[in-house]
């Protein structure tokens, strides 16, 4: 199966806890955001507890786990923002 690469960016408290600002993941072509989240959890054990509190963006747009990924997509984990309003929960 053909593979694709996606870039993942971490910010603020997530970046600090993972000690990582950005990295790449290799996924089968046709993968969705949910598949990437599963791969991220496998790589970072600390991520599981944080995921219910973060939103996800693909190419600078908020997305749900069903969103399709392309080769070269940029995914970002968006922890609660400065306003402090409770974000919608995303389950992985």
């Amino acid at each position: 199966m053909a593979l694709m690469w996606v870039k993942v960016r971490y910010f603020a408290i997530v970046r600090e806890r993972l000690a990582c600002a950005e990295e790449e993941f290799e996924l089968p072509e046709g993968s969705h955001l949910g598949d990437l989240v599963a791969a991220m959890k496998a790589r970072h054990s600390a991520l599981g507890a944080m995921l219910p509190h973060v939103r996800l963006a693909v190419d600078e747009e908020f997305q749900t786990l069903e969103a399709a990924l392309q080769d070269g997509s940029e995914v970002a984990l968006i922890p609660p923002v400065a306003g402090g309003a409770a974000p919608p929960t995303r389950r992985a």
Partner: protein
Amino acid sequence: MTDAALAARCRLQEAPIDVTAVVGMVGGSFAGAVVTFLGTVRDQTGGRRVVGLEYEAYRSMAEKQFARFVGEVEARWEGVRAAIVHRVGHLEVGACSVAIAVASAHRAAGFEACRHLIERLKVDAPIWKREVYADGAAWVGWGS
């Protein structure tokens, strides 16, 4: 209004905010009012003394979101023109962290549009705030 003209009124910067310049982005002969909102750094939160703030942003997405918010208000309130400038990096107590300006023919639309912009920004702009205390620091919005 072109997308580029709108994008020029939506930005993040390290440098201190020149409020007069932000007002200048939106004003014009069409305007009978310019409403501004300034967010400033408070010296305490929940009784704990704050000595400064660190703002971090997903800059490209934040500027895109600002443009989306401004597009929303310019579509919803006819004839308004808005700008959002937000700082990133270290801010001292008293510094201006965000400036919003809305020009309109009449004041009512300006007040409503300005309120809409700050509320949208507080929820959907990827900008994070770390409060620095005399004895530590914490990301706002995360809990513990």
